[in-house]
């Protein structure tokens, strides 16, 4: 995707500075309404959800004590997968955002909550709440764009190693909790800057490794060991491994749909200097995409199906996003902006399409048809094996050809 500032067809060109400030005020009003009406019903929602999730997890793990029996394995693994998804997304992500801090319950608070995942809550809160939500979709600042392992913009020069990015993305998705842990540690950047011995990094690394050890011991040692009486050590281990993979794949998919589908805007670093509140709101609106679906989809996705509403109001209770969505959409319409919402398969396909498209040289995927496939493949081979000079030459050739076509 091209950043909004480099687009020839700028989707916010029609908005004046005053328009944007007015938009900010209207969004503030929606936020104030929700805060004024927060109360016992909302508290009951999260408490019931936590009770249900813990009961489901407990029940599933008990069933898995006899996981050597296939029906028990299936039921237990399915239950545990759902329990882990709920714990991670609708509960964990939202509690850690401070959405429930208003209840003043020390057990359901962003400062005390720890979640069933490899990355410690504090580290995740830094990279997510502080960085991702402040610098949403700003190229070079929001590392959620590609997690540092993918090419996410046409402006980034293509290199043959990006051909592997669909595979890296899939592997990252399967083991997402470890990918996130490495990401929150800023492992890649630290290695590049050769700062591995830095005491601060070492301290955080120790914290992450401790968390991983405890998590792995729980799922791959303790619970399988508890199933030894029924001869279920290995089946339980496999069941827990599967449940973690399911949770990883699901959460990765939902998250990809949040900012990656085609049509979601990205922004230049310089463009956010001196950003006003209204402009921050606008960037959140254009940099996010929703998933349309049933109530079940909303809960299963941790209400990240309302990614737009979540990015506008990250600290409002997630159960209120659905209620707020029509008012937000009305503002999109009023200010002539596109509200990106589509069903899950469509959004996921779109996000993966982008991953594949950008794994290839600019324009390659769009140009390639059945008829010219052989020559396209030859071109790709040349660009992959030829080295930087060859690539530059081919790109320049394409530019000239495009220029001639336009002139014609």
């Amino acid at each position: 995707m091209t950043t909004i500032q480099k687009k020839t067809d700028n989707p916010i060109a029609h908005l004046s500075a005053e328009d944007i400030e007015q938009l900010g005020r209207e969004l503030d009003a929606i936020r104030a309404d929700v805060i004024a009406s927060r109360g016992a019903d909302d508290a009951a929602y999260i408490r019931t959800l936590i009770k249900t999730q813990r009961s489901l997890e407990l029940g599933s793990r008990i069933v898995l004590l006899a996981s050597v029996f296939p029906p028990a394995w299936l039921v237990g693994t399915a239950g545990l997968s759902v329990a882990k998804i709920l714990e991670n997304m609708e509960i964990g992500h939202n509690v850690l955002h401070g959405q429930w801090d208003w209840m003043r319950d020390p057990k359901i608070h962003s400062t005390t909550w720890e979640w069933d995942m490899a990355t410690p809550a504090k580290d995740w809160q830094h990279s997510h709440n502080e960085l991702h939500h402040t610098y949403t979709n700003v190229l070079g600042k929001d590392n959620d764009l590609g997690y540092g392992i993918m090419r996410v913009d046409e402006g980034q020069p293509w290199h043959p190693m990006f051909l592997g990015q669909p595979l890296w993305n899939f592997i990252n998705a399967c083991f997402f909790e470890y990918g996130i842990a490495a990401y929150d540690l800023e492992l890649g950047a630290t290695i590049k800057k050769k700062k591995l011995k830095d005491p601060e990094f070492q301290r955080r690394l120790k914290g992450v490794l401790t968390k991983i050890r405890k998590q792995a011991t729980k799922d791959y040692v303790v619970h399988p060991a508890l199933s030894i009486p029924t001869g279920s050590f290995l089946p339980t281990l496999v069941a827990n491994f599967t449940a973690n993979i399911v949770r990883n794949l699901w959460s990765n998919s939902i998250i990809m749909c949040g900012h990656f589908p085609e049509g979601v805007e990205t922004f230049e670093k310089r463009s956010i200097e001196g950003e006003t509140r209204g402009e921050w709101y606008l960037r959140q609106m254009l940099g996010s995409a929703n998933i349309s679906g049933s109530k079940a989809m909303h809960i299963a996705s941790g209400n990240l199906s309302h990614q737009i509403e979540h990015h506008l109001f990250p600290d409002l209770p997630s159960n209120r996003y659905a209620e707020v969505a029509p008012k937000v959409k009305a503002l999109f319409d009023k200010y002539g902006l596109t509200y990106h919402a589509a069903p899950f398969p469509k959004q996921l396909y779109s996000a993966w399409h982008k991953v594949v498209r950008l794994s290839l040289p600019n324009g390659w995927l769009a140009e390639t048809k059945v008829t010219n496939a052989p020559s396209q493949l030859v071109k790709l081979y040349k660009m992959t094996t030829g080295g930087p000079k060859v690539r530059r030459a081919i790109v320049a050739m394409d530019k000239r050809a495009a220029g001639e076509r336009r002139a014609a």
Partner: protein
Amino acid sequence: MGTQTWPMTDTIARPTVPLGSRSPGSVRDRLARIAHAATTPLVPDDYLDLFNPLRRGAALRGRIVEVVPETRDAATLVIRPGADWAGHVPGQYVRVGIDVDGVRQWRAYSLTHGPRRDGHISITVKAVADGTVSPYLVHRTRPGTLVHLEQATGDFVLADDPGKLLFVTAGSGVTPVIGMLRNLFPSTDEGVLVPERSRDLDIVVLHVAPSEPDSIFRRDLQALDAAGAVRLVARYDDVHGVLDVADLASLVPDLAERTTYACGPGGLLDALEQHHDEAGLPLSTEQFRAAVVVAGEGGTVTFGRTGTVVEAGGSTPVLEAGEGAGVLMPSGCRMGVCYGCVVPLKEGAVRDLRSGDLTTAVPGETDPAGVLVQTCINAAAGPCTFDL
């Protein structure tokens, strides 16, 4: 007759034992470790709470079993405390945490029964006109509601050999005293009993209330008076006028022989303290509402741990005020989104610069650890103290 010890329940607290502090390597300890390893990052308690939140070893909680109206704006709540309730001495109070409109609030209430045979405890709440918690407790609480508790505490208790007593109670200040009196003189279907252990007591109760129907425990006090357990001197503001401490001597002729216990509003207690000081008489008091937070614009911001004090304006975020004074303040997005700047407010009020909403912390009412607030979007609204 020698010293009399008033009946007390077992006050040995049974706290939860941390991992490894039992003989390490013991079977119990090993099992506890396995349980923790199986539930991490939660603790076994988080699952056990699904089944029995009142069990031994759990955080102290209670379940409201009965709500008994006393007057039109006061009610007694009978609570079944968790298994670790360590008992109480009559006159003590208990801090109760209750969720009102989704928010956890803490208030302190005197225990209005001596230790009961059924193990339940009771508090009597008077609904304050613009209160948050008391109207909820009196009018909207249902039996079955779970509340959070702390162990009983307070020094407003009788000495072992109390001698002649004067209780001065005003309004809801009667609650600790009724707890003491019910323990000394149990109430039965046949009326108030004066048991052997309480025969030698000489008690005068001077009870002040706005009017007779509004007097909580009026009937209990009258029954105690009728049984000769106490001498009741009732003063109603609408009949006798507001009580003047100077009249004490005429209302209670042998005042000089009595130890006074007083519980009521600050004004009455201050006047009594002055009077008894001058007369050289013994006085024990209990005051319910110590601090009232009055919100303003800006104020003195105190950082309790570093000792830094700084004056901040009403539109300066606490984060900037603290940083300007050299305090190491946690921060994140600096725009209210990420909750990376949250710090406990121990006392005082802050105002949300985006919405104007006030957050107040009153020691004794709000969480003793402080109310967590974001410093990047809140400014001082009067004097405030942070735990930083």
